[in-house]
């Protein structure tokens, strides 16, 4: 199903090949998942709770490495350099320098707004004040929150509203110029207006980078994404352009899930 929509104008930014994942307890959470992420596109992962979509997303920045006993099998290859980011020789820190992540609940550090955004740069050894100032401003503008915080950059990030905190976390992920950005249900803790803001922001961000987003919200997948993958019990059931998935899915299970008959 992937091959028949090879579009010469869209390059593949990354692809998983026969990816299997085992949690420390032995739970086989991903079963031979193979799918591409197209450059400058938004790919949405949908499926019922426990289907492995967050597990899949967290493979892309090796988050599973933080907890002992987890095991990957297969490859995630990044282009154009053809690096298999799951390979043993590849440091997870290198992977996280290229692929950033926005989490389900806003998780700013208990530091100032400025320091939250600057942290990714500080980790990379950047200490030039002018450089940091510029980058922080650029990232906050990119995350559409600059106007709300420009006069209080030294305030604690906790004093922002939930939606603002999430946009701050996007700015933090953006400041380091990632090639791919992962969103793990980024709006599930937000109200509808903040959700609309984040969705709009994602559409703007894809001009610059590639986005993979996990969502529980079918309408969100339909609104925001270019490609959609439906997962069930650790398997990739169907993957296609979002339009196709939502109008004429090729599998009955996908249709049932999308129309709300199941899940």
């Amino acid at each position, binding site marked *: 199903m992937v091959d028949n929509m090879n579009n010469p104008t869209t390059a593949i930014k990354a692809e998983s090949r026969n990816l299997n994942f085992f949690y420390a307890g032995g739970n086989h959470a991903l079963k031979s998942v193979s799918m591409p992420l197209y450059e400058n596109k938004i790919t949405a992962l949908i499926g019922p709770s426990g289907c492995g979509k967050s597990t899949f997303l967290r493979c892309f*920045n090796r988050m599973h490495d933080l907890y002992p006993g987890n095991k990957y099998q297969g490859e995630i290859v990044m282009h154009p350099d053809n690096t298999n980011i799951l390979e043993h020789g590849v440091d997870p820190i290198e992977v996280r320098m290229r692929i950033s992540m926005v989490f389900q609940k806003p998780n700013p550090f208990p530091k100032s707004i400025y320091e939250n955004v600057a*942290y990714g740069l500080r980790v990379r050894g950047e200490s030039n004040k002018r450089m940091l100032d510029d980058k922080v401003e650029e990232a906050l503008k990119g995350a559409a929150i600059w106007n709300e915080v420009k006069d209080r950059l030294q305030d604690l990030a906790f004093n922002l509203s939930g939606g603002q905190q999430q946009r701050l976390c996007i700015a933090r992920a953006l400041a380091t110029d990632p090639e791919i950005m992962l969103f793990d249900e980024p709006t599930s803790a937000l109200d509808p207006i903040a959700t609309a803001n984040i969705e709009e922001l994602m559409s703007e961000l894809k001009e610059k980078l590639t986005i993979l987003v996990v969502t529980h919200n079918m309408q969100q997948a339909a609104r925001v994404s270019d490609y959609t993958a439906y997962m069930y019990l650790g398997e990739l059931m169907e993957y296609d352009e979002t339009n196709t998935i939502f109008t004429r899915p090729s599998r009955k299970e996908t249709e049932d899930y999308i129309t709300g008959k199941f899940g």
Partner: protein
Amino acid sequence: MNINMTTDTTQTQASVIRNLAEVRAMIKRHKLNDYIFSLIGLLALTLALLTLLTLFTDLVMDGYERFNMGFLTDFPSRRAGSAGLLSAWVGSALVMLVTFLVAVPMGVAAGLYLEEYAPKNWFSDLIEINVTNLAGVPSIVYGLLALGLFVYILDLGQSILTAGLTLGLLILPIVIVSTRESIRAIPTAIREAAYAVGATKWQVVHDHVLKYSYGGILTGVIIGMARALGETAPIITIGALTFIAFLPPSPITDVAPFINFEWLSSGFTVLPIQMFNWLSRPEYAFHINAAATGALIIIVTLLMNGTAIWLRYKIRKNIKW
């Protein structure tokens, strides 16, 4: 028909009202338990506080006539009236300094390692159980260990260094446990956020874990120090002197390099030992001195614990999770 319906409604109404009355009676009964428990709790709290307060008041009333500057600036003496605490509080302060320098780096490093770096397996579980157990080992056992290890094997003498090392070991479990607990209070989401932007383990530990947990660690350290201040048994075991009419050499000197370490090997006494010494004298006048010393130890301990609570509040204020 109509009449019947009215009676029906009245009957339903009546039964609803009766039910409601039953529900209210039940809630009242259940709330009585709340009331009874809060009374018991209050009683327990009052008893505990009253005991402490009585003890403290008794000490103050016995020893108040010795509350003057002379008591702090005089050496012990044969005459109770002119005997003071100078060598004891200076000894206590210097021993505390060594204790702090031993327990804090070791305890924090050990806690950090166990929590952040150590692999989780049966061996780390074993260490964890033992650290917790160490906190319950009677302090005199530490004294025996110190007598054998520090005084005889390492030949450090019956010195301030030996006492500081001993008390440092004694409060090490307290520091380790409080370090681990405050590290564990940091949410996974914050750690993951730091790792996700590409931080190394040490960057996460240094920029986040330590920064957000040092309030709790500091609290543990201060509470441990307050305990060490009142410890008597291990200090007696290692052979602290009980009657000292000299001060250890000053750690700071007026000639370069301005610090010296001779004080570490000096003989010493500490507040609780001075108190014990005075208490074992037959003359009543010395018992007054002991009471005054006891009051002083309690005041200093309370001040230390108060500082710990205040610091924790102040530091936690900016962190919400």
